[in-house]
């Protein structure tokens, strides 16, 4: 089956290269959607910018770090109160956002002095906080403010503080993906190895690419505690700045989100020889497989088996209750990238759900290779899907539930299709065994919402028999 040109795309025919309908027996080497490519202007793409990929997705998760955004106010305002990544210290990361509030005169005459003043003020106003990320934005990158020089100056004057700078203006790259890359590489270049972690176990690892969405990190941490594995750094769920400086001392890098954070794992392997192990943390079979691999690496297979047995004992019955009731449910996944391949097979194997369409905002070629290999035939695989395409795809595949963000969720609500928040979750965590039961429950509750049936009723028509009888 060739790539698909949708009716709504007849005026932007290049979109055909981004949409693939899988057919049995085809080789994904022949038909792989073009991805990580320039966005077509005016298409109502879902993509964000590189700055948000760095600040909102990775840096802003840290629980002890000021996030100073060097630019006009919008970049700060917009990357605040849009994520659900709590911390165990009262959610410092979600409560505050910092901006240099650039005005025209600073654009004309340069904003470095303003940045220096804002950094000092922020440390003065919050004297307990000693760590900071500084980000450029579109205008401060364009005028060429040297944020590294400013950070260096402040650090020399305030020896107790440490500052990391991240230069990823919104126009860099084609999506948020560029920001992930810039932050990963910047961090390993400048900060990893600058602090020695305290080693408390014979088994140490970094857990990379998990951002504690609704407590994912904290749930998985209970597993690592039970297994006796010390997580030196969480990149970056519920994480701290200084822990991330000690990543070079781990024996193993376990990677969940390969798209946002695979880069740092690769560099840790190259520079420090730390092996990289990719796992899927969503789904029963995958989570068990991940635990088994990690335990095999450390030679603690028996602990792993005991943990898995415990968790299955606790949660498998609940999962199966939902599986029985979700059989054949048709799901669409419209999220960032990796969750497509993390989820498509796990919901199929663990819950009997059929994933009928998937769209990725910022996935790369390897993400599509993985998802097409894992996903079903008859399913659409879309790169950078836009609004009109979503309408057309919905008509074709008629999903019962869509895993996507809240805004698209509001859109599909009008079509009487329920959404489950595929970014921030409805009521998570969704990772791990308990988490996947949460995902199953939220999916079940979404699909079985009685309001959706009522929404389809036109009260001007004849009432259904049951209502008539009740009234008589």
């Amino acid at each position, binding site marked *: 089956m060739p790539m698909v040109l949708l009716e709504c795309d007849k005026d*932007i025919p290049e979109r055909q290269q981004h949409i693939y309908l899988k057919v049995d027996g085809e080789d994904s080497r022949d038909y792989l959607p073009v991805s990580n490519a320039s966005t077509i202007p*005016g298409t109502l793409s879902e*993509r964000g910018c590189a700055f*948000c990929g760095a600040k909102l997705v990775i840096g802003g998760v840290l629980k002890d770090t000021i996030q100073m955004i060097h630019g006009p106010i919008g970049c700060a305002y917009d990357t605040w109160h849009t994520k659900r990544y709590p911390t165990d210290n009262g959610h410092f990361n979600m409560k*505050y956002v910092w901006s*240099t509030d650039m005005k025209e005169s600073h654009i004309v005459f340069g904003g470095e002095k303003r940045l220096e003043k804002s950094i000092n003020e922020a440390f003065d106003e919050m004297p307990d906080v000693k760590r900071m990320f500084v980000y450029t934005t579109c205008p401060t990158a*364009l005028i060429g403010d040297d944020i590294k020089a400013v950070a260096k100056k402040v650090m020399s004057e305030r020896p107790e503080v440490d500052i990391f700078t991240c230069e990823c203006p919104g126009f860099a790259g084609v999506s948020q993906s560029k920001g992930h890359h810039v932050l990963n590489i910047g961090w390993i270049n400048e900060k990893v190895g600058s602090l020695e972690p305290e080693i408390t176990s014979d088994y140490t690892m970094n857990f990379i690419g998990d951002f504690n969405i609704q407590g994912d990190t904290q749930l998985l941490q209970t597993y690592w505690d039970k297994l006796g594995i010390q997580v030196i750094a969480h990149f970056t769920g519920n994480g701290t700045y200084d822990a991330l400086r000690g990543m070079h001392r781990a024996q193993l890098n376990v990677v969940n989100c390969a798209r946002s954070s695979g880069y740092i794992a690769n560099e840790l392997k190259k520079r420090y020889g730390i092996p990289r192990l990719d796992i899927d943390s969503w789904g029963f079979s995958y989570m068990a497989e991940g635990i088994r691999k990690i335990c095999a690496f450390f030679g603690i297979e028996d602990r792993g088996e005991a943990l898995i047995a415990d968790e299955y004992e606790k949660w498998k019955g609940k999962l199966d209750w939902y599986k029985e009731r979700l059989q054949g449910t048709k799901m669409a996944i419209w999220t960032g990238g990796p969750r497509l391949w993390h989820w498509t097979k796990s919901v199929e194997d663990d819950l009997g759900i059929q994933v009928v369409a998937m769209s990725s905002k910022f996935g790369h070629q390897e993400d599509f290779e993985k998802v097409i290999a894992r996903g079903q035939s008859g399913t659409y695989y879309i790169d950078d899907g836009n609004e009109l395409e979503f309408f057309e795809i919905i008509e074709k595949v008629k999903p019962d539930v869509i895993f996507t963000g809240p805004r698209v969720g509001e859109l599909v609500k009008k079509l009487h299709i329920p959404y489950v928040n595929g970014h921030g979750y409805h009521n998570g965590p969704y990772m791990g065994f308990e988490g996947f039961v949460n995902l199953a429950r939220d999916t079940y509750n979404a699909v079985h919402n009685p309001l959706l049936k009522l929404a389809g009723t036109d009260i001007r028509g004849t009432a259904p028999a049951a209502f008539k009888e009740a009234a008589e």
Partner: protein
Amino acid sequence: MGCEITSRDRAGIINPMYDCQPAGAQYAGIGMKDCIPLVHGGQGCTMFVRLLFAQHFKENFDIASTSLHEESAVFGGHARMQDGVMALVRRYPHLRIIQIITTCSTEVIGDDVEGSINVCNKMIKEEFPDREVYVVPVHTPSFKSSQVGGYSECVLSTFKTIAKKKAEPSGKLNLFPGWVNPGDVTLLKRYAAAMDVDASIFMDTEDFDSPMLPDKSIHTHGRTTVEDIRASSGAFASLALARYEGASTGEFLRDEFEVPHHLVSTPYGIANTDAMLRKISEITGKPIPESLVKERGIALDALQDLAHMFFADKRVAIFGHPDLVIGLSEFCIEVELKPVLLLLGDDNTKYKRDPRILALKDKVNWDMEVVCNADLWELEKRLKDPDYKLDLILGHSKGRYVAIDHKIPMARVGFPTFDRAGLYRQPTMGYQGAMLLGEAIANAMFAHMEYTHDREWILNTW
């Protein structure tokens, strides 16, 4: 004793009250029918603002981006602007208005928006000779003003582009309410109908509260049409309710087409609503009807139960849009609440000379601070002082943690209010709005009394 007007003395901002200019421009843009604003900048400038609107209204709004990438930042983004406009025109056959909203990046690069629009207009004419699509330049660099100014700028630019000549007398009143909720628009329409006044509300956002229908059709968009805007130059008068959000368009219609322009205090609270209705009556010669006298009485009757028993002497901090904050402070004084801290959140130097603020200065006989160019840290910082007493916060959801962490009752009002259900549906303007807000304040206080066991038994017999 008295009112002191200051400005934030820090360079940086911790927790902003407003988004940037392009965000405000986008809000104005979605208020129009058959319109998709096209933001000329990085993709985040659109994606997050769409999310913000979705958070507040629980609705999706269509806004496009030129998706500025690196090569455009270096070589200019003209091609992306033109491609963006044409992609929209081709794929959305009903489209009649596209605002090109600039951002910090494209203003710094210096893209020639007007030049690109000329090119687009030619291309549209050639490819679609039967269609008329207005492509509107909206210059809203993020490093100037804020969402407040951006809203105003987009309304003005759109009118300047569409209202090109004096229209036939329409017998209508142009009403510019500012950045308000669908609940306010519905209320204003009801008031106009009650006074037998044919009013065009700019922008008509009533359908920002839109239904799930059996036929699955989607009606989530503004109702203001090209025809409404064209006809505005033939209106018998304009009435602006918000000095900083839309009043400039009334001035434009006056200067360009001699449409008489009137500005009233934003109708929050009883007296301000009285003034608005009297002004409408004065302009139109129509009497204020019995029904509004009754509605006013119901509001007074409800507020009277709350004012001196629960509200009197309670110290209030208010933050949000300037016209809202000033209006709410006047409402607070009416119901015996004591506004002690007003936060206005951008560098507009006119706030300090706003006649309403100067009037407050004359009126208050307690300590009151007005902080201009403020952020929410101004509020939080004051609360870190154990001697700083505050009984109530009035503001939008971005300030929720100040209230939560400092255990101060907070009534959500303004934009955005994403952490409470359905507030966009309720009016804050008018008598009904004053009553509903007063009751929301009372209920927030009552719940707080219960959770903190603070004389909650008072309510045993209320």
